[in-house]
């Protein structure tokens, strides 16, 4: 299932709909990178609210996406990680270090806007 990528001003929003296959994640990574370049976006929000399991591949891909987008000069926030998922991830040692996280979409947007302000 393809992940839709929405553009909202300077920010791109990718919302996971349900459990994704590895191929979907690869597509998302490629798609996000291309769109960041094309729209000259400054921030990316990946919303994982709908995910009730996060395997190590998904977690690693998320981290890679965040780091690659940083190399393009934009910020990434992962939002909407469920409490159970968060604890399971930590127990498996997948802590997304170096990646910003926020409670939900609203918080994520607020974080990015704050970030843009501090850069400007």
């Amino acid at each position, binding site marked *: 299932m393809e992940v839709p990528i929405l553009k909202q001003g300077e920010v791109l929003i990718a919302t996971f709909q349900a459990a994704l296959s590895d191929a979907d994640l690869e597509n998302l990574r490629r798609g996000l990178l291309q769109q960041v370049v094309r729209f000259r976006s400054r921030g990316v929000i990946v919303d994982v609210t709908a995910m009730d399991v996060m395997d190590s591949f998904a977690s690693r891909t998320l981290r890679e996406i965040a780091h690659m987008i940083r190399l393009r000069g934009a910020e990434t926030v*992962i*939002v909407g*990680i469920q*409490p*159970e998922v*968060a*604890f399971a*991830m*930590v*127990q498996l040692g997948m*802590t*997304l270090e170096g990646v910003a*996280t*926020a*409670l*939900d979409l609203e*918080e*994520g947007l607020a*974080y990015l806007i704050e970030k843009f302000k501090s850069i400007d």
Partner: protein
Amino acid sequence: MAKRDGSTKDLATRNNQASELVPSEAPSELLRELVAHLRQNRTQLREEWVGRISEARLLTAMTKEEIFAEATSVYDSYVEALETETYEDLQNYARNLSERIIPRGVETHEVVGIVLLLRDVLARSLFAKYQTDFKKLNRILDAYEPAANRIANTVAVGFVQERERVIRQQQEAIRELSTPVLQVRERLLILPIIGVIDPQRARQLTEQLLRGIRTNRAKVVVIDITGVAAMDVTVANHLVQTVEASRLLGATVIVTGLSPEIAQTLVTIGVDLGKMNTVGDLQGGIEQAERLLGYKVMAVAEAR
């Protein structure tokens, strides 16, 4: 091989006994005789037993009168169990007795001790009665011993079960009381932890905190562990994991009130201090949280 030898030998003795028993009374008849004897000498045996109890310094939490009263009913239930060979009444009595004496601090070894003492006192009296007729004494003891052991077992198990039930009940009560997640300002939660943390409680704390972060939309959480004297490595690791999981939900965690022992544990397990945000006491923690949230608290006079 040895085992088989043993069992054949065992069988042989049993056969032997059976053949000896054939001409005389059946075991139940022996038990009846035994019970009659115990009933007859009730007063004397009971007093001797109570004497032995105080000699052995058991049941020190109870007064002499109480011991005597309990001893009387234990003696009667004991004889009754021997007579009827049913243990349900005794089991109920043991449970009832345990319920009464556990809150007074009676220990397992005391309960087991007094039942074994009674068993010994009664066995002695049987020795005294049948010492002239060795064969009969043997048969009487054959009937008495298994029943007596079973009684001792029943009482001890009843006591331990009751004790475990009380402990379980208390654990549950503590668990229910133990984990408040409180909102002190908008988007600021505090989680005061008091007492010993076992892995199960740690897990529960984490679950409640993460759920609290979500429902209160918290941005900063202050975990205060002033009331925790020490924690083992497992629980310390769990604390670190809780901090990281909270970050994944977008909340910053500040840990306050670490005791020197806990600080040592955290250093020993090699916590990445970049991930842990710690402040000396709860006040400092809340102040830092307010700074993070952009609050500025000042006296009214200063603000004017």
